[in-house]
């Protein structure tokens, strides 16, 4: 499963990339900016992990840009953020995020958390036929 990780913090990019790769994901990283949207268009990831607080464009602006682009609009987005008050999380979910992962995350559990959140969304769409390019990999 291909993931695009977008975070302006090089420490987080290094650790999360390693943790997710160890968990079996194919991870591409981006330091942010609208270049991240171009990467997503090219990569066609199965999900985007998006930092919330970044220099402009921040995570919400990138989320909107991904949603506005036909090539990336259907890609589930998981926010990765240290802003995890219930109201903040609820606002992100209401906006259309598939899930929210709290920072600081446990690197040993990050992969499971990503799978859990993506599977939760997939259950809501279980009546859909599997995508042919899916490769049969289960969430």
């Amino acid at each position: 499963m291909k993931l695009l990780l977008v975070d302006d913090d090089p420490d987080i990019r290094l650790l999360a990339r390693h943790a997710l790769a160890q968990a079996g994901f194919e991870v591409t990283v981006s330091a942010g900016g609208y270049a991240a949207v171009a990467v997503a268009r090219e990569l066609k990831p199965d999900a985007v992990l998006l930092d919330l607080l970044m220099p402009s464009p921040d995570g919400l602006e990138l989320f909107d840009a991904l949603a506005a682009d036909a090539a990336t609009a259907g890609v589930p987005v998981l926010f990765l953020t240290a802003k995890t008050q219930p109201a903040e999380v609820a606002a992100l979910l209401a906006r259309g995020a598939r899930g929210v992962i709290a920072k600081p995350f446990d690197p040993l559990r990050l992969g499971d958390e990503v799978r859990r959140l993506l599977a939760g969304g997939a259950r809501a769409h279980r009546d859909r036929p599997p995508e042919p390019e899916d490769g049969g990999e289960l969430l």
Partner: protein
Amino acid sequence: MNRFEAYYRRSLKRRLEELEALARDLEDGVPRARAELDEAAHALKGSGRSFGFDAVSRAAEAVEQAGEDELPAALAALVAVLREIAAGAPADEAQAEAEATR
């Protein structure tokens, strides 16, 4: 994840320099110093525990949440934690330092 501890320790040295510069800016009344300090603290809060340095996340969160009166002490505590780690203290000693300064 111990293999990343040395990497993060080096990263914290750079962040310590940034924080010390921001602390001087704050004293000098530089506009946006507080906002930049909050951004730096937010990043440290979000990464410290993931790398095994819980004390960094906790001290950084205290800075982020500090009112104007509490900020100098919270900032001094965060700087102390980062200095301990930069000086080579293992994660658990930095933790003890943070608890001693709370």
